[in-house]
């Protein structure tokens, strides 16, 4: 009985909070046309300024932003942009697909066949993020 009261109370509270929220949704498309690697601080003085793509650590930190405010990413990027690197199955590594974009931080540039033996043995954690649960067909072709 107490559980039912708690659940009903929680639902009522959430309904009340929902009814009173009244926020406007983020635009589905960024209102201004942006160039590649925008510096968000040029216009935004609030927290959106932190998404400055030209910051040297943006690539290493973008996972934090994606995990907390994915909708913001979606206002400029289609799903395909993320899938270029975060694929669930892929034959061609991103740096081969975009060899005309040397400035992009794409994984596995150069001779990664040799490098993966070093990374895989000393730092498997870096592999798991992308290959631990998906995109592991090529791993499994040798590592049964």
């Amino acid at each position, binding site marked *: 009985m107490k559980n039912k009261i708690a659940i009903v109370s929680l639902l009522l509270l959430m309904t009340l909070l929902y009814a009173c929220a009244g926020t406007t949704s983020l635009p589905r498309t960024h209102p201004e046309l942006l160039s590649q690697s925008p510096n968000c601080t040029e216009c935004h003085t609030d927290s959106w300024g932190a998404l400055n793509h030209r910051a040297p650590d943006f690539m290493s930190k973008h996972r934090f932003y994606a995990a907390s405010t994915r909708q913001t990413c979606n206002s400029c990027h289609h799903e395909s942009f993320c899938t270029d690197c975060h694929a669930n199955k892929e034959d061609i590594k991103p740096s081969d697909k975009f060899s005309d974009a040397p400035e992009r931080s794409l994984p596995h540039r150069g001779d990664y066949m040799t490098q993966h033996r070093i990374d895989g043995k*000393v730092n498997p954690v870096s592999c798991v993020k992308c290959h631990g649960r998906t995109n592991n067909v090529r791993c499994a072709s040798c590592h049964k």
Partner: protein
Amino acid sequence: MKFTYTNKSCLVLGAGAAVLASTLLWSTPLIASDYSFSGESNTIFRMRTSITDKTISPAYEYLRLTMTDKLSNGSGVAFHLGAWGRADLGDKPDDHGTNGNLQYAYLTYQAAKNNSVFTIGRQFISEGVAAERIDGVYLRNDFKYGIGVSAFAGSSVTTEALANPKYQGGDLIYGSRISQSDKQMYSIGLSALKSESTTTRNYREEEGLDLWLRPHQQVDINGRSTYNSITNGWMENSYAISYAPTSTLSLGADFSHVNFKDYLFNVTTPALSVNNPLWSYNNKQTAYGAGASYSASKNLTVAADYKFYRYDQSGDASYFGAKASYKLPDNLLAGGGIHRMNGDVDKLRYTEYRAFIAKKINQADLTLDAINVNYDKNINGISNSYVVTGAAGYEFNPKLKVRGDLQYSKSPDFDNEVRALVMATYTFDTKFAAEGGTKSEK
């Protein structure tokens, strides 16, 4: 129940997507003005030699489609689809001769108020502790006092189903994230996910705390802690801070600590599992580092970084270096860098060099990129490995671009390897700049 994608089913899906795209493309004049339909087709031919001396020459088609319907009340519905297929024109790299994948296909609704989102289909979930591709549903909503709630449920997408149930990825996955934020100052989130399989109800059970603090306009702090409730241990603690005292200078530092037994628990790749004898079950990895970037002029940026790693079984290692880039917009891009890995063990002692230049001449662009790694101790009798890539592209019009590249490499595995790739990119969009800045598939 999990559906396993065979090559045949992937090919059928890819063909279906192509037929759908063609139908929609040709019918676009009939579509009402509130609709927009955009997409991108990448047709790729590659050529390389495999490690077993086979000549591999596959042809690929990557197709990305987006259809959106902007409703009059400010809400919107969109359908996104991405898939690829491969046919081998030369020797077969595997037993199949064809391959393919449905990368994503989902229908999503976003309300005009409260950031309400409902999505159904194959999608990538990125919510706190969850970074999963699922076939399922996702919903989120904002509430009063900066509270946001999201939830998802479905089946994990795994592409290499192994016989051992331990590596099959579970059958059902669900989770949620609740956050509280002040858009000027901070966002803090609590999240959890659970995965069940036919053999166990506790395949994965993880909880996470994520935070984003912006105490000052020039300071940005992000971090995440994740906990494995099955192994009863912290999987990862990872935090980073940035400070930009001026518009030309940026400083940053980060820290992370990972416990293998908790982090590598029930992954679907045996080589990365805690059961792999390559590393000890109780191994830990700690890393911390710092970096600085300075824009010496509007065109020139220099950066330096340092990272210290502590591995239980490979000792300590420092990775440090510097890089620079020079850019003239729509004309020239040049850059290079040098990094050194200096570790306690032989395999963690090497030096990386990189230089690249890209030049745009009217509708054509040329790129040259070279990467060299010198190993302190030879690998297979080879002291260094290098890859040189030359690429050339031509934009026939804003919708059609063709590019080709040639790659030459020498490595511990290949004496002289040549790879080639030709890619034709065709984009289509029925409504340019309909809502301000259009999104492209790039």
